[in-house]
């Protein structure tokens, strides 16, 4: 809304706005300190991690001379194998996103363009599931996964992600804005619904699919409770579970490996966020202009 005024230069910022801006900058810098500490510590030798004040503040030159990749060697070495865990996370995340996109957009297509008995009730029921605090149901959830013989199986982790009620809602809201004439003309040409979905709707709905992918990317990549209870074999552990395993060492926790792996698992979504900022914020916090 202030876009009209936004072309103004710094000298047009009033004194009150100046104080506000200064306040925001200070808070913003403090806000970034923990991340900065994590990044900096991941390059320090283990003995320097907990030194105060951090050398980067007192003597940046000395800090840079100290920088080493030792923590990363420990984390990605044979013992902790963070690289493998990150690979599993990639497989699970990509698989989860693709399955979500296919199933949710097929479902949203039916709710946007087709008429069938029970449509209104079913749609409300789908939305209502978003309100359910399913995090409380971990015991029967795992029981169900076990019953389906999906325990300790990546599919048992991936498949439930696709049941995203939010995904159906988001895509259906997008689809109902697509002109019906496009669907009807394809119908007249004799195309079936599956074909129309794939050839007409999917290409047109790329922005909505991107927004949903981002929401799912953040949720799946960062998930911890589900992989922790479903996966048993070490070679199936995702990155978040791997970090927890590192942390459950009782004596002298390998903070160097934890920090290095933690920084990499945080860096992946941070990079995606900085590149796809608009989609991230649209998907997660609702439509933002500007």
């Amino acid at each position, binding site marked *: 809304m202030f876009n009209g005024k936004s072309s103004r230069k710094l000298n047009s910022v009033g004194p009150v706005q100046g104080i506000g801006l200064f306040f925001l900058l200070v808070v913003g810098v403090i806000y970034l300190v923990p991340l900065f500490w994590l990044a900096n510590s991941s390059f320090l030798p283990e003995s320097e991690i907990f030194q105060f004040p951090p050398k980067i503040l007192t003597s940046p030159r000395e800090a840079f001379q100290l920088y080493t990749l030792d923590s990363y060697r420990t984390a990605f070495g044979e013992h902790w194998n963070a690289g493998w865990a990150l690979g599993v996370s990639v497989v699970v995340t990509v698989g989860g996103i693709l399955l979500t996109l296919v199933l949710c957009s097929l479902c949203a297509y039916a709710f946007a363009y087709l008429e069938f008995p029970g449509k209104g009730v079913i749609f409300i029921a789908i939305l209502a599931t978003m309100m359910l605090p399913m995090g409380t149901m971990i015991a029967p959830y795992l029981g169900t996964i076990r019953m389906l013989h999906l325990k300790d199986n990546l599919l048992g982790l991936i498949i439930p992600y696709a*049941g995203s009620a939010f995904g159906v809602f988001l895509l259906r809201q997008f689809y109902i804005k697509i002109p019906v004439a496009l669907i009807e003309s394809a119908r007249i040409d004799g195309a079936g619904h599956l074909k129309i979905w794939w050839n007409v709707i999917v290409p047109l709905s790329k922005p909505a699919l991107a927004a949903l992918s981002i929401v799912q990317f953040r949720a799946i990549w960062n998930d911890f409770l589900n992989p922790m209870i479903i996966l048993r074999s070490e070679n199936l552990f995702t990155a978040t579970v791997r970090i927890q395993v590192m942390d459950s060492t009782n004596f002298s926790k390998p903070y160097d490996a934890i920090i290095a792996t933690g920084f990499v698992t945080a860096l992946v979504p941070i990079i995606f966020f900085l590149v796809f900022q608009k989609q991230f914020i649209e998907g997660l916090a609702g439509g933002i202009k500007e």
Partner: protein
Amino acid sequence: MALLVSQSEAPNQAAGAVNPKWTWRRIKEVLAAYAMIAPFMAILLTFSVYVLYFGFRMSLRDAQGLSDGSFVGLQNYKDLLWADEYRARDFWLAVKTTFTFMAGCLLTQMPVAFVLAYILNHIPLVRLRAVLRAAFFLPVVINTVIIALLFRMLFNPDQGVINSFLGLLGLPSNIDWMMNSSYVMPLMLIAAFWQWTGYHMVYFLSQLQTIDPSLYEAAKLDGASPRRVLWRITLPHMRPAITFAMVTSAIGGLQVFDLVFLLFPNAAYGPGGVAKTLVAFVYDQGFSQQFLTGMASAAGWLTFGLILIISLIQFKVLGLGKHGEA
């Protein structure tokens, strides 16, 4: 929000869906529709409706580990609420911890997020605004596992940066954030504050930007003071957004698990388990030494009901329904 928007639309569509003639073409359309929603519905039904049913069934049995156990009626519920002294004490402590955490999250995050969004919205430098917005949003995209461990390291009583910094300022530098029970909740709230305030701020900012600028201009012409504009124009417009943020934040806060599981070393939930939230309590029943899955299911159902009631009350008291959208 989603629920309420569609409630007004869906019945109309259902009414429009009544097609008196069951022609071959129509039957084909209905079959196609069911086929298209079937895979999604199968997953959704399995992992919501069936899981809830399965959980209820287990909650009435003394199920343990892989064994289904035998029917015990409401014994698990009784044990949790009063009959088993130790378990009941733990359960009610978890209820207290969880609600304190939720209330603390709302009271700390919402006002600060609103003030930050308000100031940010009045800064006419678009580029800088985008940079600040991104800075505050960064913690939202990171996993809670590393956030919890990061805060444990920063707040480490002996070697942590925070205590060293407090010492530098001449403040007490020997605060035991991990083992002193009066500092456990503040630590949880600080970590949650860092993780989520930016999220609410960005949401509030997006909603502030939907207010019609002509309203502000009219108020300016009438000579209204900035404070009056805030109370009479900005806040009334933001009410649905604030309500929505509070309800979703409460539902999330009541289900917190990752943060407390990892914030304290060896999943001990702080001294005497004071940081053990309800979901952590459920997890402990079902997945630690005894694997009491029946008990965990009963605790899960109690928690499920509690959270659902709280969110419905919030909707009613805060009046989201009246506004129709958030």
